[in-house]
């Protein structure tokens, strides 16, 4: 029974415990890879176990919708507690984290040739950080994991990246950290206001949600939280770190960056930003919706102009996360469920896209679209996977992104119709650049003859896992949506 095993703490700290084990075998890359992969698979097994055997928490729950909760005192003097909990939303995010990390490990199996043990150590630390972000319910603990996430990603981009990778790594680190520091001020502010009002100084989410705030104060505090999350999501115009970071990162880095890190921003807004400051969120919702729609259209527009495949996928991520942000801005049950589902969908799809682009990069040492052509004839399995994933990214019904986008648009049309209507353009634009990409890569005649091998066994396993997830989420998302019902109802107040 998952309840009895302190499974949440196990989920968070198993990867970093595995790291310490890796440190002792770090001379031999083969052992390091296998050890890291086994830890990643163990994490995945744990999260899938919770998914299948979703427990119910005995006794009263501090927050509705949560079915796992662990809480111990940590820094008593400041009211900081170690509190982790899981509800439907965090469960989906945890499964996504474990899944994407395994994909990242498999993707860099042959691609990373130097300092292999360090690479896999950083992937494991990354998994701890991201899992901690999705599971923590104490604001201080959340902030700690939020910042810890940045360090492994900085090293991943900086050491194994290409192009202007040092510049991109530093830009990513500084940009995100600056936003986080603003959030730190807001957290301190909320903590002190709550303490002054109720006499209890605490960082616990259920307690802080009950603080009564003056309108202008709550707007400032929400604004600070929002900026930190908007940088991560990323929302226009705070997205400029993303193209450089995604393009210059190694494949595993891009997979985790796009698959997981972007979701932490949206998750932060859903779990902390909006519940802590509901009136401020409602006031600023039109602004968020506007920025989301601009991001959708702008991201897709710029993606069309790219000649570098990775940069194209990076800009497409801006567009897709714009949809997620639109659903959060709408804050209706359907739209919010759609956002969370879309976070999972996009995580899977974009990981697949970056994995495929990485495979081409490994074979031909270039990411220019113009260098490839006619892959449909030359590498049919690869081309089939690419077609499937690209069509999923474009929102083909029957595949996963369509369900998320449909729910978001249906849910937001009722409350922010103008934004939803404009966002429909965002459904068409990805088709434009996707079809162009497919045409040039798969079907056009190639400019230079290139000998490319088809998928190897390892790559085949990676792609079949991802494609199966894409199809399954597209055709039968009902079980996942059922998981979301209770938490979403609580968060939106059942409007």
């Amino acid at each position, binding site marked *: 029974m998952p309840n009895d095993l302190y499974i949440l703490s196990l989920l968070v700290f198993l990867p970093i415990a595995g790291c310490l084990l890796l440190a002792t075998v770090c001379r031999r890359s083969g052992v390091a890879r296998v050890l890291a992969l086994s830890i990643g698979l163990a994490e995945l097994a744990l999260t899938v176990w919770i998914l299948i055997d979703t427990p119910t928490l005995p006794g009263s729950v501090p927050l509705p919708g949560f079915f796992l909760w662990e809480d111990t005192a940590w820094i008593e*003097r400041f009211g900081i507690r170690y509190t982790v909990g899981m509800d439907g939303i965090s469960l989906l995010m945890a499964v996504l984290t474990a899944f994407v990390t395994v994909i990242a490990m498999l993707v860099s199996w042959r691609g990373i040739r130097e300092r292999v043990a360090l690479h896999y150590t950083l992937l494991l630390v990354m998994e701890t950080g991201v899992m901690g972000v999705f599971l923590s319910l104490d604001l201080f603990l959340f902030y700690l994991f939020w910042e810890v996430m940045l360090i492994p990603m900085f090293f991943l981009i900086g*050491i194994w990246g290409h192009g202007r990778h040092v510049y991109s790594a*530093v830009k990513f680190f500084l940009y995100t950290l600056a936003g986080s520091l603003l959030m730190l*001020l807001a957290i301190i502010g909320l903590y002190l206001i709550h303490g002054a009002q109720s006499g209890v100084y605490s960082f616990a989410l259920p307690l802080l949600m009950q603080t009564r705030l003056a309108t202008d104060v709550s707007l400032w505090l929400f604004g600070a939280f929002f900026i930190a999350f908007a940088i991560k999501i990323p929302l226009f115009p705070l997205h400029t770190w993303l193209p450089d970071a995604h393009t210059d990162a190694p494949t595993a880095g891009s997979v985790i960056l796009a698959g997981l890190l972007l979701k932490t921003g949206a998750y932060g807004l859903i779990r902390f930003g909006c519940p802590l400051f509901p009136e401020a969120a409602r006031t600023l919702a039109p602004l968020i919706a506007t920025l989301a729609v601009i991001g959708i259209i702008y991201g897709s527009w710029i993606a069309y102009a790219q000649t570098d495949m990775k940069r194209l996928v990076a800009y497409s991520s801006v567009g897709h996360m714009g949809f997620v942000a639109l659903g959060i801005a709408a804050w209706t049950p359907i739209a919010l469920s759609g956002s969370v589902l879309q976070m999972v969908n996009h995580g899977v799809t974009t990981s697949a896209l970056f994995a495929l682009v990485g495979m081409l990069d490994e074979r031909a040492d270039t990411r220019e679209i113009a260098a490839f052509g006619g892959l449909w004839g030359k590498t049919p399995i690869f081309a089939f996977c690419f077609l499937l994933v690209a069509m999923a990214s474009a929102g083909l019904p029957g595949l996963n992104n369509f369900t998320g986008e449909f729910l978001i648009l249906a849910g937001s049309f009722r409350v922010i119709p103008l934004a939803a209507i404009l966002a429909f353009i965002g459904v068409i634009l990805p088709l434009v650049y996707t079809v162009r990409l497919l045409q040039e890569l798969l079907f056009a005649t190639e400019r230079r003859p290139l000998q490319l091998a088809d998928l190897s066994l390892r790559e085949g396993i990676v792609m079949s896992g991802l494609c199966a997830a894409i199809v399954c989420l597209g055709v039968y998302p009902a079980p996942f949506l059922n998981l979301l019902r209770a938490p979403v109802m609580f968060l939106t107040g059942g409007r």
Partner: protein
Amino acid sequence: MTVADIWSIMPLVMLAGGSLLLLVFGAVAPGRYCTWAAVVVTIGSALWTIQDPQATLAPTLGVACTPFTRFFTFLFAVSAAVTLLLSIESNERRAIRGEEYPATILFATFGMSVVVSSVNLLTLFLGLEALTFAFYILVAMDLNRAGSAEAGLKYLLLGAVAAAFIAFGIALIYAASGTLAITPALQGVLREGGGNPVALAGWGLLLSGLAFKVSLVPAHLWTPDVYQGGPTPVIAFLSTGSKVAAFAALFLLLPMPGGVGILRTPLWLMAFLSMLVGNLAALRQENIKRMLAYSSIAQMGYVTLAFLTGSAPGHMAAVFYLVAYSAMNLAAFGAIASLAPAEGLETIDDYRGIGYDRPFQAGVLALAMFALAGIPPTAGFTGKFMIFAAAVRGGELPLAIAGILTAAVSIYFYLRVVVSLYLRPAVAPVTADRATFAEGLALAAVGLAILILGIFPSPLLDMIYKVLG
């Protein structure tokens, strides 16, 4: 003076006695053994402070042995032990021989301990002067390099002016109050609207002199040059022990209940300018020790920010950050001391690629950089968090915002070191030295301290709460 009195000031006796004995026996023993003997003396003093003494006051000596005293004496003794461990190999490389070095370090530690034990202004002044004189000698100790002598001379000249300020300030306060004892009445003069002008002038001079020791803007101009020229282990001790001792003097003079009174304005300005100037100037530095000098100016700005609120959370945050800062700076300068050969490794670019060839020392250096930048899960983050929480709670919101903005800026130059260590390929064969056992011990100790204080700060916080009363 009873046996109980002597028992309670035993750390002072051990440190001073050890220093003198080293000078005697050093004539026959090689420098290395003297340094190890000094390590034993400091550890002995540190262990002594753990126990509760019977008498807490030795009035005929002008010193007391309160929990405050024991806490800081422990900190100074451990910092001295770490410095001595780091110096053994570094002194061999730079041909600093003889027993004078460890004896002077012990004497400096003695001076620091006297500062935190003092119950009257004269003892405070004597302690400050003992510590500063020791550092004049230590900074100029490297006879083979002109840079060291220049740094020592600069420190001496400016330090003499600061000492004169402190002495004159004490004299004026004595003239106004009629007593040299450090009592709450001294602080009381700061609260009244139109206090005694003589006492206020005395306080102003005293604050200026202490600001020099703590290197707050505008009394910071000596810091970059002295840090660049002096031997690195000495600078490690100077940047941590000496500044913490001077700040502890401020804690003694302006204890919690009274607050800082009208000194809030000068302290506010000094904190603001230190954070601003320290962080902005460090951006432009190429030499790693100068960068750390400006960073330490900014770090002292953060401590002042918490201190000037005059509240319990503020003082607790300030003391915690001083402990964390000691660990971080000892780690940073310690890693530099263990890596740098006799000549070379001066600029940040010189450290390219060392991260992979000397993983342990570079790891400690990178950890220290992340800690100074305030990135979790290090002690630097927990400390900064407490400082900003105390500042906002104490009503210093504009200064806290300025602090956070400058902290964001500071991440860049701390990150530059990490980028150089790990992200840039080495341009020349790596000439950095490997760590010896002593250096490894010292670096491991401070590295662990940085991590443990960051993740489990509660024991230290409880201790500080008891110490501050």
